[in-house]
């Protein structure tokens, strides 16, 4: 589903982020990418989302080079990928309901679909009573659950969660991991980046370890 073929990424100032990375993620997998800060985890996510282009090599989504796409195609690709970030990346001037509705609107859903699906997905992440709250009125865990709700509402092919638990307390972390696992159980591919060994251990799924931009291990499901 997602393929990295000898990918190297060097940021301006000779800042080497990834070096000769090759891997593939198949549909339905739950893959954790583990590494310290600066190991290259976020760069991998940004490459998949076509936010940055590789210096060398190719990143493909279903056999299509994501960096050889028109801007409209990139938007289409991003609508097929649900993203969850450490800093939530919610729209601050929109309520919980509107944040999710926006993702559905840009995906071309009808008003009827929006008004039936948004409450449902908010209920799934236990935010049914926070519909009209703005992101700044929610706790960290609630914001992340809202970000997950937004990521899954369009039933994407894949969910990419970049350090989703980085800013959360252990209880909220546990909740988020549970939700991601449930999403994967329902058939959606999940890529999770984290620096927390505890999170990875609790999952017992495929783990890719990154160090200084290189893959140092890739252990299959335990």
């Amino acid at each position, binding site marked *: 589903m997602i393929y990295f073929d000898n990918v190297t990424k060097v940021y301006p100032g000779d800042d080497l982020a990834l070096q000769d990375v090759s891997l593939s993620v198949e549909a339905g997998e739950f893959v954790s990418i583990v590494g310290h800060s600066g190991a290259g985890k976020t760069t991998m996510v940004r490459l998949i989302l076509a936010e940055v282009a590789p210096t060398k090599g190719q990143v493909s989504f279903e056999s299509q080079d994501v960096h050889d796409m028109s801007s409209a195609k990139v*938007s289409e690709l991003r609508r097929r990928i649900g993203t969850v970030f450490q800093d939530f*990346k*919610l*729209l*601050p*001037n929109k309520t919980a309901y509107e944040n999710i509705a*926006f993702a559905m609107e840009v*995906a071309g859903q*009808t008003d009827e679909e929006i008004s039936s699906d948004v409450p449902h997905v908010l209920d799934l992440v236990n935010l049914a009573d926070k519909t009209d709250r703005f992101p700044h009125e929610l706790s960290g865990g609630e914001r992340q659950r809202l970000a997950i709700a937004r990521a899954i509402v369009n039933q994407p092919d894949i969910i990419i969660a970049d350090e989703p638990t980085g800013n959360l307390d252990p209880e909220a972390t546990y909740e988020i991991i549970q939700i991601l696992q449930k999403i994967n159980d329902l058939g959606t591919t999940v890529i999770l980046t984290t620096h927390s060994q505890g999170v990875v251990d609790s999952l017992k799924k495929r783990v890719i370890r990154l160090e200084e931009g290189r893959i140092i291990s890739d252990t299959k499901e335990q």
Partner: protein
Amino acid sequence: MSLAIDFKRIIRAGFINFMRNPVVSFVSVLIMTVTLFIMSSLILLNALLSFSLAQVSERVDINVYFYPDAAEVETLTLRDDLGLLPEVSSIDYTSREDAIESFRERHADDYLTLQALDELNENPLGASLNIQADETGQYASIVQYLETSSYGALIEKINYNQNKGIIDRLNEIMITVQRLGTIVTLFFVIISVLITFNTIRLAIYGAREEIAVMRLVGADNKYIRGPFMVEGILYGISATLLTVIALIPITLWFSSFAKTFFGGIDIFAYYVTNLPQIIIILLVAGMLLGIISSFFATRRYLNK
């Protein structure tokens, strides 16, 4: 998905953003109001100067003085002939009797002059014609007609040449003032347009994180840019409203002293009479400024 639904959603998002960012909206509207205010000043200044120029032109005329012994029948024929010229807009005929009478009235307190006049035993004044043309430039041809026609012998004096210098100078001054006024106001218009553009750019710069998030969830350019352009339109509409309201007391106050200075134009009455056109001009200018500023300000965040 239908274009109508896209359109509806973009307009709704623009309205919501406008309402939920009251400080940004307030500042942008205020800056745009200043721009529109300067634009309307340009319109009003032009009207004021054009009116004054027209007034000056209207005051320009020529007087044709006939010899005292010129036959009245002939002078009247000349008057009628002149009336047929397309350049002539009005002619006033002053007979010899009227001339002496008004002379006496003017010198009612001047005993010596009146006594001298009485001693003459006859009317020394000739009849005269006061001619007004449609445009200042047409006097030369009227004068030429008079001088070359068969009536030339009846004419003692035409005061065109005396007035010509003053007329031309006045015209020049008015045109220079009008041109200078336009240049100065245009300069301010350009400056304020640039300030408005930068204010909107700053407002959108403040929303760059939001734009990045929208892009991440896969929003098309129209979904990102559209609401900002709607906001730009709302800035334009609000600023027009504020400008139009602010101009009511200002023109009213200005009218009170400008009336005497600029030769009778009532700038408030002019403003009220031309309000529909002024509103349309300001509305179009404001909305265009909002749309174009937003369009260019969002461009740099969309091409990444």
